[in-house]
């Protein structure tokens, strides 16, 4: 059984590619997340990844983010922030948590 995850690719208001994820990301579905992320980055330029709807993401998912970290603008729940900071992703990617801005 695959963990529930919905991925949506769009354009952000400022025309950057926007990838919106909902649900949980673990080893059962990380490959689709990675594929979506790669596709979004392929469109060129910085990609906005909206993870506000993601309640769980494991280190596999963080690895996927690392692959393109410099090109990512992440929007996520503050609850996920400690994990991203521990892995060092905050050093490379732009991370925005709702309410606190970029």
């Amino acid at each position: 059984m695959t963990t529930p995850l919905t991925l949506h690719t769009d354009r952000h208001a400022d025309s950057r590619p926007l990838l919106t994820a909902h649900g949980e990301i673990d080893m059962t579905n990380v490959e689709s997340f990675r594929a979506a992320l790669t596709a979004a980055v392929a469109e060129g330029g910085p990609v906005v990844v909206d993870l506000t709807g993601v309640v769980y993401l494991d280190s596999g998912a963080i690895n996927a983010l690392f692959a393109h970290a410099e090109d990512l603008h992440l929007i996520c729940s503050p609850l996920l922030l400690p994990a991203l900071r521990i892995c060092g992703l905050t050093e490379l990617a732009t991370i925005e948590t709702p309410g606190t801005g970029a």
Partner: protein
Amino acid sequence: MSSGAEGGAHVNEAAGVASATSVFAADEEIGQDLAAVDWAATPIGEPSEWPQSLRTAVSILLSSRFSMWMAWGDGLTFFCNAAYRRDTLGQKYPWALGRPASEVWEEIWEDIGPRIDRVLATGTATWDQGLLLFLERSGYPEETYHTFSYSPLRDDLGAVVGMLCVVTEETDRVVGERRMATLRDLGSNPSVARTEQEMLEFTASQLDHNRWDLPFTLTYLFDDDSGARLAATTGIAAGHPAAQLHLTAAQSPGAWPTTAPSEGESVLVDLDAATWGALPTGAWQQQPTQALLVPLQQQGAAPVGFMVAALSRYRPLDEGYRGFIDLVAGHVATGILSARSYQAQQRRAEELAALDRAKTTFFSNISHEFRTPLTLITGPVQELRTRLADAEPSVREELEVIHRNGLRLGRLVNSLLDFSRIEAGRMTARYEPVDLAAVTTELASVFRSAIQRAGLAFEVDCPTLPELVYLDRSMWEKVMLNLLSNALKFTFDGSITVRLGVEDNHAVLTVTDTGVGIAETEMPRLFERFHRVERSRSRSREGSGIGLALVKELVGLHGGTITATSTEKQGTSFTIRLRFGHAHLPAQAVVEDPTTTATSASAEPFVQEALRWLPADATADPAQTGANEDDLSSLERARAATGGGRDLPAYVLIADDNADMREYLTRLLRGVGHQVQAVADGQAALEAIRVHVPELVVSDVMMPRLDGLGLVAALRADGRTATVPVLLLSARAGQESSIQGFDAGADDYLVKPFSAAELLARVRAIIELARLRARHSRWRTALIDSLQEGFFVCDADGSVVEINTTFTEILGYGPEELPYRTPSPWWPDPEIDPHAYERVGQAFTRLVEDDSGEADLPLVHHDGHQVWARFTFSRVEDPATGNHVIVGTLRDVTAEHYTLQRDTALAALAERLAAADTVSSAVQAAVTELRRTWSAQRVVLAAFPETATGRASEPDLVAGSDHVQWHQLAPDLRERLLAVSQAPLLVPQTDQPGRVGVTAAYPGGVLVVWIELGGRRPVGAEDRALLSLLADRLGQGLHRVREIDQQREAAVALQHAILGPAHLPAGFAVRYQPAMRPLQVGGDWYDTVPLPHDRLGIVVGDCVGHGLDAATVMGQLRSACRALLLEHSHPARALAGLDRFAALLPGAECTTVFCAVLDPASGELVYSSAGHLPPILVLAEGTTTSLDGGRGIPLGLRLDRPRVQDSMTIPARATLLLYTDGLVERRRRALDEGIARASCAVHDGRTHPVEELASHVMTTLTPTGGYEDDVALLLYRQPGPLDVTFNAAPSELAPVRHALRNWLTRCDLDAQYVNDMLLAVGEACVNAVEHGHRGHPGGVVQLHAIALPDQVCVRVVDSGSWKAPDAEATARAHRGRGIALMRGLMHQVTIAPTESGTTVEMYVRIPT
């Protein structure tokens, strides 16, 4: 300076020789080389430009035969002459010429530079005397000494510009002085060296001072077996391979050759390193290369040894060196020989002294050896003469011959003995003031009849002298009697005159005869010992030649002189001069009290002998001679004096080693009616006396084992025999012997030979006196012996000196062995019974130190059995001596002791068994008690069960004083125990000393009691009896304990069976503790019941009453409550139903119950209480409350009264405690107090998991002595732990996460904690799944999470390995990040990989 130079690098061959010729002409050879120097390159330039002063200096230098060099100019340019080149410069020539002096003598510039500077600066000369230099002028570095004088050199203007050094070699002087010093020291002090060893040590210490010429030396002395032993060394350590202790004649490498030295030849030995290795270097840096072996010569014989002298490698072995070593060897040889000869003399002197001592001893011994047989001849002969007075003449004549010769022999022996005494300096004189006229007249009168019978006139002219003369009377007697008998012997006509007078403050005695006289040639040897003066005629040819010699010695002892004048055929006159007073005599030998003894018996032999010289008809009838008549009748007179000698029979003990003498004395004494026992020596006498104290002891002085003096001393030292009279018989005449005898404590002293009459008279006198004295002490002895208690007297140091018969009966030791010194033989053996020994020792200390006291002591009877004796003692003063003695009594209390011991042991064992509540504790208690009773070293109890096939070979219970397991016991002990287990009941087995085993009845088998007393302490009959008794009681006691134990075990088993659920739901912990002693089984219980809709019923109750009845009621109530809860899930209704049930069940009334239904998911709790104590709730942050709602009365009392219930929600991480009153109720304490204590215990321990918390609460609340009532306790923490087991498959991850998120929500955690926990646990699960997937398809993963008030802990266990294959680098990076995440998010993470899987534990702390 020994270093070589690089010859002539600077020499310029092309230098102008012509200009130099004049300057260097003084020495052709050196001059040539100087001319060859490239002077232009030196600071002083070409010789042609040299100032006159330099030229002059060089010229002087070269022309001098003294060794010298010079330095010139600022650069101190070097010049030297031929002598210097030869003696000093060596190979540096000619390189050195023209060089700076500092370069030429670079190696010593530090030393000479400053001196030269000083010369240059001050212009004054200086020098170095006797400087040691090693010169290689002869092909080896040579030790040389030089004196250097440094003088300034001035230029034409008088300024100092250079320096001249004149060198004088002083090697011969320095080395010579050094060697002389050694030789002088060697000869310095041989007087202290008496022995060979002392001499060698002295020599070595002197040689050691010269390690320059003698780096090391070894002195070997030849043995008898042609080998040599090392006698002394210098400069070489003992044990060095070159310092072999023994050398044999066989030559071997690394050993010194002995053959040549033994033949008197010196040998030079090369000390090559290959053979000899490292050798001591002496005063030098390098080891010697040669050693000279020189023989230690002695005149006219082979050498006594040889000396190895290691040679200095820095000096040639020239004549001087060799001569020095020869002289050293000569000194050593002389020393050894003189020491040896000194010792030989010493030995000879000692041998002579020993010979002299032996001679003296021989003479002394002769006295004894001769005197005893003499006594046995003359004594019986004396008696025979009396008895055979009427026998036929021929018999009497023969008897007279025997008698006279006996006397004569005695006199000779005495004379010899006197000489030996005088020689040994042991002649003890006793000078007393005497009236010399009276004494002389009396002695003369003894000879009067014999002289008159010979037809001679006898004139005695002895007027009383104005002063007293100090004489030793016995000696004086000998002097007089010898002179008189001598006069009679050689006088045939005329007279013998004794005349006394005064002359120059001396008493002068002359004995003059008109006899044959003495030839003038014989006069000088008249007083010579063993010299018999040849005379023309004498009355007898007999004579030993010692008479006059003895007279001279005796007179000399008096400080007097004796002279003789004689004219052949006219007569002889002896004149004795004695000083008046005693100033000339040794003060210690002078006494002022004169003895009253009359002329002693020693006169008789002289007279008897003299009479024999007279014509036969004159002596035909000895009975007619006055002197003889007196003597012969002496026995008669003695008998008359003793009233026939048969009126006072006494018990007399005779001690003499001579059997004849024993028989003779026995016959004599029996003859007058005494009871006689005779023994052969002093020791035997002592033993006999201790058995039966005699009224008199007659003892010889000289005896084997214990002599007469020793016997007297021993008798006097012993209180029981101190008053026994002793008559000593001695062969030793002379006062010093009798004084010794009296000093020792003898009552009388008789010298052999003695007459029978004299002996009997003395015996009678002694016995009469002693009887008077003894009456009192016999009474005392009789009194003491009649005592019913043992009686003893100790002296101040505790030795037992007197005992009575009861004492002997109690301990078996009689008076024969008295005194008994400490430790007495009745003390326990410290080896066998150290405990008893110590006890007796302590009592003894008190005996000696305290004034009085009492003690019960374990003593050992003579036959070995133990005796318990009660001692009482007190200290008293001995009126006789004023010393303290200890008087005591003792009583045998063995029977009392064992009775008391038995009663005490039985009571103590009974008490201990009563206190035991299990068989094993009873057995352990018995071990302790048995050990105490016997003070045993070890006690082992082993219970061997009876099995279907007989008795087991291994016990099912072992208890011992040293806490052992059966298999830890020594194999032989196990064997013994097994053997004893086969023995009949209660029969002690004592196969080994100090060890005893016995069997006792034991439930289901047999109990072996094994006791090791320690040491070889014997196991007595009393011990065996007591052991049987105790074993019997132990068996009975164990049986009783076993019955009680079984009952209790049954009740507890039952209660456990009906108590609670076998498996508790998660989150619960329970405790049930049956009450301890006295045995009670309460009616407490707890219960959890799974109910529909995932809810749980929880019950805690307490029935009234004790024991099995209460337990039965409880079991039924519990079952009923379960059923009711399952039916209603409603606590109030359940309790109402239980009310009705309880009403029907006898004993169920008044039961209190708390009943609740819990929803574990929400923590909601609905509850009702039937009079039960309110549960306690402790929140995570520590707030404590109790559940006071839903209260009702206990069960079965009012069936119509409705039950109510209440509800509440248990907050997350709060802890709920349900309990029964046993936990909190204490006698005489308020219940509230107990509840508060319980609340407090839960509060304090709340951060523990519930299982640990339960233990904590039980322990904390345990009263001293344990819980008195049953305790049931139930703990619950909300939420219970999460336990999930899932297949190691990725698809399981999301549901597990879901379950974990739910559980964490119930833990009431902050969202961030929930998220972090999920992520960290998620990473652990991913790893577990990956491993499980890879390593063990179908493996499972276990997730366990528990919530504590202040933290949440999670454990993930998988069955795989976290070790990643190297190929999967990506995966590793992934996992690395996962682990980093776990560690970053959790407070602690531990990962423990094992063979079978990996366990990850992590926790996060929660603020409360």
